[in-house]
């Protein structure tokens, strides 16, 4: 194992790594452990492949999307902070108007560390969740996209570890090590957040995950990009650009599955799920059930609907709202209230609560808005095929495990149910074992350039404008 590293070359960065010897030493110790983790928990059986990947080598527009064939363990995981823009003052909370912090204020150290660790933990978790999917890829194009998502999640882990090492001393280094020892789905040492311990067993799940769960990432990162702790704000701002690619994989992946299903339905002249399945496509009701599952699991990630932690984070200037500066209010929120949906006496009702305590709910609602728009674009694919089916997002209270709504059983259209009504219908609303087994049965591996599995349509446009039959992955 190499003990000295030429950082400028091996780790593209704009944080002056070669001059910061303490940081370099810390990362030198961490990097071998990271590579061990990648070999053990990264994409399965892929280390010899040449993959057509995008690598960021600088934060300039031209530097950040360098395309070329890379063997994944040799991927250059860089550390980038978005360029500073505008006046460097805190935009919200009690410190509004004060200069941003270049270092961690002592009184916020524990909370900031917790924020960074929670965000950082999701990055390796999703790589672990997706590690077997390469064996069942529907095309080389999709395989490449999976690996791109994986290496960028790896880079996001690096970004968070950089912050831990650079700003949090020994605690930070210990947390950075722990990020490599927790395991998604492990009963004894699981990842921090629930959705990141769920399995991603098939490609439809992957596309739903990257559409919904990576979109949670977008909103969390966007809220952190407002942080008064400038290194965190600039780091997360740069990560957002990559997160967009992950959502693209999800949105276009689901859209292509829907498109193929619609083609099959039109060829058959039937919407009978059994016939559609027999023809090798995923019937639209099953796609709806997958959507229901991933949507509901993801909105739990925003946390309890009333949270004093969220209020603390905001008031302290650690974590803002999505698009904080585009909001027309005082950015302190003491006098504001916000309607929160809650269960009371077995019913659902909006209650006005102090907005500061409802900031998780505010972010969740922003996420819901954004998600619904994309589902509308999926429906346009169905509409274009001349079919009447429409996908919907389920009610906010459907299948919740966190917050006050977790006490209730609620149908996708928002009716409060008895336990027996829920049990009688749950297989209509969430993927059953049978659904998952059927989807799994479609997951044959297709790796011939230009060919796609029968359940998914080819993309409208290649990566970096490459043609449909481009050899995105070369097997060693």
């Amino acid at each position: 194992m190499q003990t000295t590293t030429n950082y400028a070359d091996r780790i593209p960065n704009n944080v002056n790594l070669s001059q910061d010897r303490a940081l370099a030493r810390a990362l030198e110790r961490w990097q071998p452990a990271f590579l061990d983790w990648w070999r053990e928990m990264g994409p399965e059986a892929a280390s010899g492949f040449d993959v057509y990947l995008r690598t960021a080598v600088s934060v300039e527009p031209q530097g950040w999307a360098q395309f070329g064939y890379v063997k994944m363990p040799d991927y250059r995981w860089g550390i980038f902070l978005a360029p500073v823009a505008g006046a460097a003052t805190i935009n919200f909370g009690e410190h509004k108007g004060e200069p941003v912090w270049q270092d961690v204020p002592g009184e916020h150290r524990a909370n900031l560390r917790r924020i960074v660790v929670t965000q950082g933990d999701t990055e390796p978790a999703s790589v672990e969740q997706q590690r077997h999917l390469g064996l069942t890829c529907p095309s080389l194009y999709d395989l490449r996209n999976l690996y791109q998502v994986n290496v960028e999640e790896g880079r996001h882990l690096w970004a968070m570890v950089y912050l831990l090492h650079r700003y949090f001393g020994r605690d930070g280094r210990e947390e950075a090590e722990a990020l490599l020892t927790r395991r998604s789905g492990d009963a004894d040492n699981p990842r921090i957040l629930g959705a990141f311990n769920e399995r991603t067993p098939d490609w439809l799940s992957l596309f739903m995950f990257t559409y919904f769960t990576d979109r949670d990432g977008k909103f969390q990162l966007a809220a952190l990009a407002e942080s008064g702790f400038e290194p965190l704000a600039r780091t997360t701002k740069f990560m957002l650009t990559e997160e967009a690619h992950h959502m693209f994989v999800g949105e276009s992946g689901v859209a292509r599955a829907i498109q193929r299903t619609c083609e099959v339905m039109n060829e058959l002249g039937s919407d009978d799920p059994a016939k559609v399945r027999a023809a090798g496509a995923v019937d639209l009701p099953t796609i709806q059930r997958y959507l229901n599952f991933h949507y509901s699991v993801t909105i739990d990630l925003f946390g309890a609907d009333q949270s004093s932690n969220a209020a603390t984070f905001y008031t302290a200037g650690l974590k803002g709202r999505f698009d904080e500066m585009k909001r027309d209010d005082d950015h302190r929120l003491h006098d504001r209230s916000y309607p929160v949906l809650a269960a009371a006496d077995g019913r659902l009702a909006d209650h006005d609560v102090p907005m500061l305590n409802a900031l998780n709910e505010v972010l969740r609602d922003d996420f819901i808005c954004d998600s619904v728009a994309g589902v509308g674009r999926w429906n346009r694919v169905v509409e274009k095929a001349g079919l009447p089916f429409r996908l919907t997002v389920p009610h906010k209270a459907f299948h919740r495990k966190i917050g006050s709504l977790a006490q209730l059983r609620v149908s996708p259209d928002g009716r409060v149910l008895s336990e027996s009504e829920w049990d009688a219908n749950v297989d209509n609303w969430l993927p059953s074992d049978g659904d998952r087994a059927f989807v799994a049965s479609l997951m044959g591996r297709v790796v011939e350039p230009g060919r796609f599995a029968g359940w998914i349509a080819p993309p409208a446009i290649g990566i970096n404008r490459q043609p449909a039959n481009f050899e995105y992955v070369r097997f060693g």
Partner: protein
Amino acid sequence: MTAAASADYALQHLIDPEVCIRCNTCESTCPIGAVTHDARNYVVDFTKCNACNACIPPCPTGAIDHWQTVRKSAAYTLDEQFGWDSLPAPIEVQVADAAGIPEEVRRLTEAATAGQAGSAVAPWSAATPCINLYAPSRPAIARVTGNYRLTADDASADIRHIVLDFGSTAFPVLEGQSIGIVPPGRDGSGKPHYVRLYSVASPRDGERPGYNNVALTVKRVRSDHEGRAVAGVASNYLCDLGIGDEVRVVGPYGSVYLMPDHPGSSLMMICTGTGSAPMRAMTERRRRRRAASEGGELLLFFGARVERELPYFGPLMKLPGEFIDINFAFSRVRDRPKTYVQDRIRERGDTVARLLADDDCYIYVCGVKGMETGVIDAFRDVCRGRGLDWDAMQPALLAKGRLHIETY
């Protein structure tokens, strides 16, 4: 702003709403705030976008990289774009007024293609060309951004590589198309000068990829066909241009002499002198797409008097053999027998015959008038020796868009 005043058409930057995932990356990247959005779409403001392309690499989907030719007076507004579910069809300038092509351009084209003995069609997979967007009465204004000599300093021929940039004016060209240059001033009888046609030497995405520019290969004309001393009006005008000078350009012209775009298609290119311009354009197009591994062969026969007079000799020599099979023919090398492209064609008879019989191979000839007969005779000989009949083959080649001859 001469360019703005002269041009009716512009390239408008658009985002494909069917591919876009509304991730906001373009809006946050744009340094001048030209990208905006509503609840439905992300759109580019035509009045602000300066085509700096900063938004192109970060876009995760490719939706950002769309450019349509529009009439400047009718560019799509923000409100129109907000309403889209998909990109509109390109406006009708695409195959504009073939009928309105100036008589002199039509005459020049007919004379140049006389040698192919019949009218050809474009390859089936050729991209759709734009034609005649700019007439002599309202030319596009380009600016010179490069002008350097291709031939050695001691060579008798002065052949130049000239780069013209169209700025914000749309001037879409395909490899094999020509553009017309209108020299300023008037001729001896007080009339405006005729349009002179030059085949573009750069591929469709620009001399520099992603730039709105074209390259020309221009030989300074010092004598006429009979060898009498004559200073060519347009060629001397072009060769003497300095960086930043404005040039009036008309066209583009040509809807047939185009390259195939389908994977696996091969090109056989035969040229002399400045006839190399379309071959350079096509070769460069293929070179830029090599990573796509689309297959197909490139076979080039290139004639000149001596090596020093062969335009693009240096860059050609740098291309790898597995990409392009190059065959030079020099007719004036001291103590060496005179060799012409037709001699090389005969030497490579097996390869030539194989490609002539291959429906995916397209043949392009460009250069001085005198080469036509020699090349056709060589084809005939190559065929005869291998059980093929050139004279029976030629009409089929024309009908399939596989044979293209332009000589002058």
